[in-house]
């Protein structure tokens, strides 16, 4: 049963606004923004839903939340005890023993989530082969449980050495710890993969978040008893609330993941299989590589210096956005960021007291932004741009700095470096990629950046301001089962593959996923002796198929060479189970409001003043072409076109700017 019979609402909670996109058969898609309620996001979610779809029932409510992210950033976490193998009490403090900055003495490592006093060590030991070197005795289990109890935890993390190879010791300990009646996170259940620090860090993050997420989801389900709620995970798929309550570490990139899922769907629907998602907001910019319509998923993310190894879309974030402040340093270079004017006072042109020159002010004085347009939600409270204030702010920079044009050039250099990180540095040629631009500032910079990198095209979706909420409707239910095997490539791994497939499929069913479930296999592999794995898609379900040729191909693509006579190690097997998304592709019939009549305006482009067409996005229909120089305006963003660029509106309502090869 692919088509929902009733309405579904994707609800994404951001820092400032909670966005809702409603899909209902027989209705045009509808998008609503309401203020986020930081203390309890559930209040804002409920308001948004009531506003967007009053009075009628909802069947499904996929949800993007920053609850976990904020709890980690603000350290409002549960008091957690870590149980680990004797001799490794300080695994979190030591981390990988490197310091975060080579030369800057002011930078220090983040404090671990569990202090030394809250760690309990266990006399036991597994070998890499999964045999007990030191058996775990019943007396030891009793002692550990008593010691943990004395520490009065709100949550417990259990992470023993080599538990990925054999989980028996962890299982027995966790079974005994259940008597404490607090959430228990078992590392081998959460992440059966090698590297003790990363696995333990993931496990502890999860444990510290479990009570927080539990509380939030109970609020949410109490306020919205009707629809089935799912939560977006960092890996780009949704999961059931029970799963997320137990494994909240999976939601650390919830909101951004939904955005890149939508960007992938938008790119594909505009005819581009490979793309970069480019989300430029007020204070930061997220970029992510998309291949075959899917965001790249990796297992090496971190939050506030704390690594987690659960699947996460490969988003690279840079601390520069529309609010970033320009300044001239001691060597005479014009710099932009990392300081930001934020939302308060905001850029000088907002007229709220800001006086520092920002990227947005640069756009303002160059005429890229409509001085008469209202900012913020169209509810009459909006304010108009103060062009003079912007000019004054830019004027505070020393004369040779380069002014507004200089600011844009510098911020573009920062963005270009970020985009190279996720493309050329991964061995991907930008000539095969489209840039999907969203966020308030993305479409202003997109075509200039795309040309600098040599991308094929720019795609601006119809509703770039609510792309994450839309992504929730486009994301499948997703679960990834994994296990480290450390086996030669020729080994028959059929049993492990089958066990993982069963586990992944059962988990989705258990979460209430009906309809078709597709399974895909991934193997992390490397040449024997290397220690960085490549993620290989394993298309052939034949049991015992030799995976070595896949590594040779992937290695050649990533690094330019392969070593066919070298033995290959399969490090970790993964099975990804996916359900069907609510929407197979982005909706096409958005209501973008009343178009304003076409005008023209003098704007600054590449050092020249040109007369640009000013076109209302709401008035554009499939097949329309807009030639540059032009400014295409809509409520949540502005798209800028240079003189030789032409934007074409495709069937789905995307603006597509094809660039000369």
């Amino acid at each position, binding site marked *: 049963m692919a088509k929902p019979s009733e309405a579904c609402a994707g609800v994404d909670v951001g820092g400032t606004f909670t966005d809702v996109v409603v899909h209902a058969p027989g209705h045009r898609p509808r998008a609503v923004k309401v203020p986020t309620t930081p203390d309890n996001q559930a209040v804002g979610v409920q308001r948004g839903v009531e506003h967007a779809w009053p009075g009628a029932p909802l069947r499904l409510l996929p949800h993007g939340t920053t609850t976990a992210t904020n709890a980690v950033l603000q350290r409002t976490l549960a008091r957690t005890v870590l149980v680990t193998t004797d*001799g490794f009490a300080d695994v979190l403090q*030591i981390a990988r*023993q490197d310091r975060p900055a080579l030369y*800057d003495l002011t930078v220090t490592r983040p404090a671990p989530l569990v202090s030394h006093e809250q760690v309990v060590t266990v006399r036991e030991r597994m070998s890499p082969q999964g045999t007990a070197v030191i058996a775990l005795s019943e007396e030891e289990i009793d002692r550990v449980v008593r010691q943990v109890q004395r520490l009065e935890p709100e949550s417990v993390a259990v992470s023993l050495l080599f538990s990925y190879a054999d989980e028996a010791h962890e299982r027995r300990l966790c079974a005994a710890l259940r008597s404490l009646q607090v959430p228990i996170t078992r590392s081998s259940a959460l992440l059966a993969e090698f590297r003790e620090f990363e696995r333990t860090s993931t496990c502890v993050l999860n444990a510290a978040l479990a009570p927080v997420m539990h509380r939030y989801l109970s609020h949410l389900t109490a306020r919205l008893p009707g629809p089935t709620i799912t939560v977006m995970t960092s890996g780009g798929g949704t999961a059931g609330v029970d799963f997320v309550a137990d494994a909240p570490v999976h939601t650390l990139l919830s909101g951004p993941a939904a955005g890149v899922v939508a960007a992938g769907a938008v790119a594909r629907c505009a005819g581009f299989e490979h793309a970069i998602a480019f989300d430029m907001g007020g204070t930061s910019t997220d970029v992510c590589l998309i291949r075959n319509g899917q965001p790249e998923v990796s297992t090496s993310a971190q939050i506030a210096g704390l690594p987690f190894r659960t699947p996460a879309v490969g988003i690279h974030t840079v601390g520069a956005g529309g609010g970033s402040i320009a300044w001239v340093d001691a*060597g005479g270079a014009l710099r932009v960021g990392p300081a930001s004017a934020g939302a308060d006072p905001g850029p000088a042109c907002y007229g709220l007291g800001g006086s520092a020159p920002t990227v947005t002010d640069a756009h303002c004085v160059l005429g890229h932004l409509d001085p008469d347009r209202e900012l913020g939600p169209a509810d009459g409270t909006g304010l108009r741009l103060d062009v003079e204030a912007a000019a004054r702010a830019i004027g505070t920079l020393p004369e040779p700095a380069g002014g507004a044009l200089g600011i844009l050039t510098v911020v573009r250099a920062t963005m270009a*470096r970020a985009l*190279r990180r996720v493309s050329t540095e991964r061995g991907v040629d930008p000539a095969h990629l489209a840039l999907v631009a969203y966020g308030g500032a993305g479409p202003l910079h997109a075509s200039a950046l795309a040309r600098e990198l040599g991308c094929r095209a720019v795609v601006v979706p119809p509703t770039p301001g609510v792309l994450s909420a839309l992504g929730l409707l486009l994301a499948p239910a997703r679960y990834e089962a994994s296990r480290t095997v450390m086996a030669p490539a020729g080994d028959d791994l059929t049993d492990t593959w089958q066990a993982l497939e069963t586990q992944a499929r059962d988990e989705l069913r258990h979460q209430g996923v009906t309809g078709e479930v597709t399974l895909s296999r991934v193997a992390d592999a490397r040449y024997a002796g*290397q220690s960085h794995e490549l993620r290989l898609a394993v298309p052939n379900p034949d049991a015992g198929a030799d995976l070595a040729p896949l590594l040779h191909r992937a290695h050649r693509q990533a690094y330019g060479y392969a070593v066919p006579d*070298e033995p290959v190690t399969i490090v970790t097997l993964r099975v990804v189970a996916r359900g069907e998304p609510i929407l197979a592709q982005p909706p096409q019939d958005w209501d973008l409001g009343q178009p304003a009549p076409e005008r023209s305006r003098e704007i600054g482009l590449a050092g020249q003043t040109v007369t640009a067409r000013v076109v209302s996005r709401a008035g554009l229909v499939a097949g329309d072409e807009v030639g540059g120089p032009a400014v295409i305006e809509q409520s949540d963003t502005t798209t800028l076109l240079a003189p030789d660029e032409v934007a074409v509106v495709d069937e789905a309502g995307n603006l597509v700017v094809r660039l000369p090869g």
Partner: protein
Amino acid sequence: MVELSGVELEVFRHALAGAAEEMGVALRRAAYSPNIKERADCSAAVFDPDGEMVAQAEHIPVHLGSMPASVRAVLDTYGALRPGQQVCVNDPYLGGTHLPDLTIVAGVFTDSAFTDSAELLGYVANRAHHADVGGAAPGSMPANATEIAMEGLRIPPILIADAQGERADVVALIAANSRTPGERRGDLRAQFAANHVGARRLRELASRIGSPRLHQAMAAVCDYSDRRVRAAVRQIPDGCYRYCDVLEVGAGVTIRAALTVAGEEVTIDFAGTDPQIPVNLNAVFAVTQSCAMFVFRMLTDPDAPPNAGCYRSLRVHAPEGSVVNATFPAPSAAGNVETSQRIVDVLLGCFAQAIPERVPAASQGTMNNLLIGTGGEHAFSYYETLGGGEGGTPSRPGMSGVHTGMTNTRNTPAEAVEVDYPLRVWRYELRCSSGGAGAHPGGEGLIRELEALTDCTLTVQSERREHPPWGLGGGQPGAVGRNILRRADGTEVQLPSKGTWPLRRGDRIRIETPGGGGWGEPVT
């Protein structure tokens, strides 16, 4: 001086730094040794046609000043490189630092087709610590070496690739001299791949802005760093400041430095430092220069783009034939990893008199090099350096269990060690109460204990086993480190700071690393 607008400066700085970083990423990802991949014991940099460094990916401080020395040696030997040529070097007396660090330098030309009409754009170079290059003990840092010939294969600048591609004979020579030849071939291949990536990026940049503009940009980013650093040097009071400290060899080897600050110029002179010794702690000048650059960068403008311009206002003098400017045939394996740390302490001691409010107390002052391995059919070569206590700083306590000074390599996870080597890790924890007391206490050292699961050879290279890391401004010193061998029969012996010993199956080595010195009077 080349004038570029503030905007262009920022744009080209990103572009050049991006090329170096991309090389570093390619190197780490494609390499074989855990040294390079897990521990990131490698560096990558971009140079102008004259061999001036214009950008560097920052991984390991000790490579700061020594990468330029390698490129200089290559150009002195071969003149300007021709299209396709890549040159390998590890000779400490000709551009290298210690033998395991292999540097490969490649010319970058406008035309990738290797025609002789192609114009030279600059050079790319990368360095990787290879786990074994032969010599008297696995890991190529034998503690008992009395001359460099005992430390492994010495490679003066030699063509390792030409217009026809990789020179298989040279690669075979290097591989044949290692206990782990397959790994050497893999790591060398990763080094070629990294240069390839850097060259491509530089060529793209040149095709976009033209090679004359590229060369202006290279000069301008160096000028820019120079301006920033000079602005910071002006804040340091003029004067001459002296300090000395010792290496734990025999009765002690003294390193002395005099720091002279005059306006925008800084001169460091190691006159009075003891002569080189027939022990592997000799530092070649490139290492000493790297140490000076490290401390200088940390205390002036740590954020200035790392290139040759950062060090134009810095002069370093060291007497030839001294332990900080060693000459052939002095063994040098540990000069890079141990003596370098002491040189940093001496320089911090000098700066502490000039700008006490900005200088941290001494950190652990050693890298605690631990090498275990064997040759033959079941050959393996495990090399690791261990973190310790960082000195307390004027603004915060020292970090615990962390690498400090001239290195920043990551550890090898126990779950990787036990899969890759016949070793078992029994303990990896902080060493309680080893940090020096202070208003900002020093960080704690580490304890790492490993059991040999087969007969093999152990080498330890460590320092600060007798003379503790000092405190500053009334802060207490950190605890000295200890190396303890526990035989399979339960007997324990404390090992000296340096040595090579046979290990029998069941023996355990426990390294307790030093704590950092405290900063400021302890609060009672």
